[in-house]
């Protein structure tokens, strides 16, 4: 059975329709890349799947593990194993990274019927995962994302993912704003988490990330619809011809043409 089945998903934000009928099936262990120009609806799709209330679903259905995903609260989706790595991780002054992550992990463990971790076990776990992400341990005691550099924020997202061990990870432009070294580290962290039981949706504007996180499938999104799907080679074709080669206008370029 498919882990995620999106059928004819439509969504809007404010008065603006963004998703115009997305169909996508993700099986266990698969990595799907979603590519598209700015404004094509990539991030909206990621946010809708994670349950952001700002976006209003206007039609369609999403089944996750056979259950109606759209009826679930964001925290229940997370407990069921969905993880969104944010494009812009949120700074939360006053809440320590450690406290936050421990609370999150124990909620998820409890939901899965597993024993909660005590302070020592938790520390051992996070130490191991921080090493993977080449992160300074002092980041644990700092408030969530507060004063982190762009690279530190993105690493922190993948670090959280490594700790929470989701079944479906959605990476929303995790490559944006990263230099090549940071990109390698982040991609390395993601690849270490690949496995037959874990699916991923990798949202990106650029093909570069897909050199490091090699997808099983690539989908091209335009104006809220998937206009082309293929294997990993599709990303390379896209790199060659640009979105224009697919008859898609990148919003930034399109502005002058209106």
């Amino acid at each position, binding site marked *: 059975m498919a882990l995620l089945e999106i059928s004819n998903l439509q969504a809007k934000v404010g008065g603006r329709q963004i998703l115009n009928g997305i169909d996508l099936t993700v099986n266990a262990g698969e990595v799907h890349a979603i590519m598209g120009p700015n404004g094509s609806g990539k991030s909206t799709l990621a946010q809708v799947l994670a349950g952001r209330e700002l976006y209003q679903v206007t039609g369609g259905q999403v089944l996750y593990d056979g259950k109606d995903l759209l009826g679930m609260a964001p925290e229940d989706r*997370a407990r069921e194993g969905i993880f969104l790595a*944010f494009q812009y991780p949120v700074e939360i002054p006053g809440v320590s990274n450690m406290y*936050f992550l421990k609370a999150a992990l124990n909620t998820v463990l409890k939901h899965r019927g597993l024993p909660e971790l005590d302070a020592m076990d938790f520390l051992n776990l996070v130490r191991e995962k921080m090493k993977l992400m080449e992160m300074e341990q002092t980041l644990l005691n700092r408030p969530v994302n507060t004063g982190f550099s762009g690279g530190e924020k993105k690493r922190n997202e993948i670090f959280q993912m490594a700790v929470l061990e989701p079944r479906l990870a959605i990476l929303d432009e995790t490559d944006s704003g990263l230099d090549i070294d940071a990109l390698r580290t982040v991609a390395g962290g993601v690849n270490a988490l690949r496995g037959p039981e874990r699916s991923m949706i990798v949202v990106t504007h650029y093909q570069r990330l897909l050199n490091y996180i090699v997808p099983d499938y690539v989908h091209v999104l335009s104006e809220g619809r998937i206009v082309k799907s293929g294997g990993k080679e599709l990303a390379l074709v896209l790199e060659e011809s640009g979105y224009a080669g697919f008859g898609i206008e990148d919003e930034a370029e399109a502005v002058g043409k209106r």
Partner: protein
Amino acid sequence: MTAVSETTSQWLEQFTTQAVADRGLQELRDAGLRRFLEIGFPTTHEEEWRFTNVSPIARTAFRPYTWEAKVHRPPGVERLSESDYQGWLAGGQNPFVALNTAFLRDFVMLRVPRGAVIEEPIKIFTCQEAQVPSVIHPRTVVVVGAHAQCTIIETYVGKGTYFTNAVTEIVAGEGAVVDHYKVQQEAAGAFHIATMQATLGRSANFSSLSISLGGALVRNDVNTTLAEGTEATINGLYIADGRQHIDNHTQIDHAKPHGTSHELYKGILDGKATAVFNGRILVRKDAQKTDSKQTNKNLVLSDEAVIDTKPELQIFADDVRCTHGATIGQLDAEALFYLQSRGVGKKEARELLTYAFAQDLIDRVKVQSLKERLETVLYEKFHEHGG
């Protein structure tokens, strides 16, 4: 002069049934009563009381409550005799201070000798529990000698309907270091009106944190006067729910050059609560090189809660740095979603963010036992109201 009205007559009656004190003290009381009868209870037509209607206090008949403050006086702290203190705050424009003066009785007067470093906090605990509406007029005076160091913790609690009309006077000598904490946890039906006056010497370092959690109607006046090179940190946290009203008026008077003041007041409002922050900073002509920063931040959790915030900067010197800022906001929707997206429940996420808003003020509490107590109190408070 206002004639003795319905609202002031009960106080005149209480005054006359009060046993006569020694001459000096009785003169003070007489002056206090006279002043109170002159100005009477304030109305909302007066700028200082525009947003705080004290008529529920004026209307209520209170009985004097027999009490005594519980004082923890650490070794090295001496009692101060009334005759050795000339500073008595007697009223001025504040009728509640005048009323307090008229009923000067169970005052706490302490002295920290010059150069003494008192490690343990001085604790003053005030509690009122009566079957009928009652009133107390606590007066605390702490005189800290030059280069001495101490911590003062005032706590106010109680049960039922009552009125606490408190005045605290702190005098810090040259180079003294004084940390002051006030924890107001009055009962839900209580009226709490308090004035704190800190008169700070040259190069003294003073910090004050006023935490207002309880009470139906609360007004705090925190007034500080700085000398040359004095450093003052004036912080406050107010958390109100239901129909609570909490008014914080502060005044920082930079009288001499090179003074520094940092002020941070934070409020968390829920239900139909109302709050007032009025921060006056006075930089007198002589007070060149003053460095003053005022911040008021409010977290409003409901549609019906109201905050009135007003900075009042009066600057008469020309070479100073004074900044002020006020914010009123709600819980950050993105932060809420971020926490939820990691599995934290919505209610818990709201509690966590609300707590986090107050966190930086609690983090600055230097007395470990007090810090832990406040953490527990706040945790329980948000647990109960959050979501």
